[in-house]
């Protein structure tokens, strides 16, 4: 099912033409309206008219998260405040938050993008869509709200939290579609079963759109099994527009990027050089049509690769692979680089534990240590200390095989790790606390 078939299945040459036309426009606008971009262009000795082909984008300087903080609060807006009708911010846990400004046109666009995403996974006006992303400054709640409403679905703006009520709403309203973080979806399943006494499989949930944090294929299987729905991956970020930049189609084989509005590149995060399609690296996005706050070559820090191969669904828009993690989440331990997703995969391959874990980094004797806390599964509890010890060792071996260094696994009691209503905190770094 398509929301906008003409665009979503546009012939590739036409798509590239459209992108180039829009790239030239956005570069010109950014140069004229945003002093930050003008300064960067001038420093690089670049003029908007120098951009003649799509490849020329490589001459444009990157925009980083640090640039955005420097421009706090409204320094990157390309429209006067009287035209900005809404602002959102990132959580700002590591410094000043990033502010995004939207004109009325941007809000329209956002709704269109989410409408495409939801239609792609079969959501229609006959669905009841429960949005359990936080409403407010976070982009998740309102972004999905605009899109689901555009489709004409019945929107249940539950926002995040109040887990008991979420489940009662699902049961009483017959919710068919859920949108939230993947970690919260697992908490919902657990809570329904153990605290409310409802088997999640008896709910009417059909599909879910999950994002805003890293998750693996193994986690998808767990979520699908526990909630009895088909789980899809959504991608987006505050700096660009929020959720809806890319979404999986029915094939669950990569996320289609709405290339008529976003130009994507993959770069080597170390050197900044553009990598050929198919290679893994950092995703860089240029928003081609954002009115209130255009972004030129924003370094997302998200690690993925671009898939240009034609998809079975008929869309011509390129796909990106499931995000492997942010460059900032990369853990460097004893000279080895590893990503939390590698640990998540390894844990979920082993039977007898729950999909709840935490990675604790310490430096007890000048050397980094990784401890992985994993919850025991109640269902498969063996009363034999020996068997539990074997399970623990199996986890250690599996994780070591995945990341290449020894880790310590500690089995903890079910439900003893914190549950999140939004983005799960998987890594506890205690190395700098001394």
């Amino acid at each position, binding site marked *: 099912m398509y929301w906008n078939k003409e665009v979503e299945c546009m012939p590739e040459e036409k798509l590239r033409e459209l992108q180039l036309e829009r790239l030239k426009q956005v570069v010109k606008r950014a140069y004229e309206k945003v002093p930050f971009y003008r300064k960067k262009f001038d420093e690089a000795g670049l003029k908007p008219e120098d951009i003649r082909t799509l490849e020329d984008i490589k001459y444009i300087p990157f925009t980083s998260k640090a640039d955005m903080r420097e421009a706090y609060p409204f320094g990157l807006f390309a429209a006067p405040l009287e035209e900005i009708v809404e602002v959102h911010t990132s959580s700002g846990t590591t410094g000043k938050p990033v502010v995004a400004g939207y004109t009325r046109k941007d809000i329209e666009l956002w709704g269109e993008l989410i409408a495409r995403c939801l239609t792609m996974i079969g959501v229609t006006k006959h669905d009841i869509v429960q949005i359990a992303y936080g409403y407010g400054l976070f982009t998740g709640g309102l972004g999905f709200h605009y899109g689901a409403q555009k489709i004409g679905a019945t929107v249940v703006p539950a926002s995040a939290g109040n887990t008991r009520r979420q489940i009662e709403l699902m049961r009483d309203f017959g919710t068919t579609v859920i949108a939230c973080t993947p970690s919260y979806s697992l908490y919902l399943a657990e809570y329904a079963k153990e605290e409310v006494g409802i088997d999640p499989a008896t709910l009417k949930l059909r599909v879910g759109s999950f994002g805003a944090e890293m998750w693996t294929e193994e986690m998808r299987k767990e979520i699908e099994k526990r909630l009895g729905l088909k789980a899809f991956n959504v991608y987006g970020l505050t700096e660009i527009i929020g959720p809806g930049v890319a979404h999986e189609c029915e094939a669950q084989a990569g996320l289609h990027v709405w290339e008529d509005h976003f130009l994507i590149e993959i770069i080597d995060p170390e050197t900044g050089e553009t990598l050929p399609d198919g290679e893994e690296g950092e995703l860089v996005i240029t928003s081609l049509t954002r009115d209130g706050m255009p972004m030129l070559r924003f370094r997302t820090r998200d690690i993925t690769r671009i898939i240009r191969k034609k998809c079975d669904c008929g869309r011509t828009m390129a796909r990106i692979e499931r995000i492997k993690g942010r460059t900032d989440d990369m853990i460097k331990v004893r000279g080895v680089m590893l990503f939390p997703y590698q640990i998540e995969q390894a844990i979920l391959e082993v039977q007898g534990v729950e999909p709840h874990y935490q990675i604790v980094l310490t430096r007890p004797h000048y050397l980094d240590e990784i401890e992985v806390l994993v919850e*025991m599964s*109640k269902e498969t*509890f*063996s*009363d*034999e*200390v020996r068997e*539990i*010890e074997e399970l623990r060792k199996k986890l250690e071996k599996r994780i070591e095989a995945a990341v290449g260094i020894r880790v310590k696994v*500690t*089995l*903890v*009691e*079910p*439900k*003893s790790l914190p549950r999140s209503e939004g983005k799960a905190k998987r890594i506890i770094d205690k190395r700098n606390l001394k």
Partner: protein
Amino acid sequence: MYEVKVISVFVQNQPGKLERITRVLAESGANILGFSITSVKDFGVIKFLVDKTEEAYKALKDAGFTVALNEALGIEMEDRPGGLHKVVKFISERGVNIENALVYVEESRHRAYFIFEVDDLEEAKNKLEK
């Protein structure tokens, strides 16, 4: 020889963990007849023999503990020097391997029970009842 049920609880090796378990048992009204603790560095398994097994098991489960119910055998023995030796000798002579065990003293200096788990309960029963 008796067939009894033993409650096993998974517990992390941390201050206060055992106390939480004993509190739940106390509140469930079950009386602890015997118990054993086996631990490896970070975690352990605590086994309880109680008088109200079903109630205690349910209370622990409801309180969120990882808990299992296992069948075990009990043999009466005399609570005096050599009492345990006599029972263990009897069991080992019949080729039964003891996986886990705990002792329930019913009447001090008089009567106690040796409660033990085996790999194959039926097989062990056959061997011991001969």
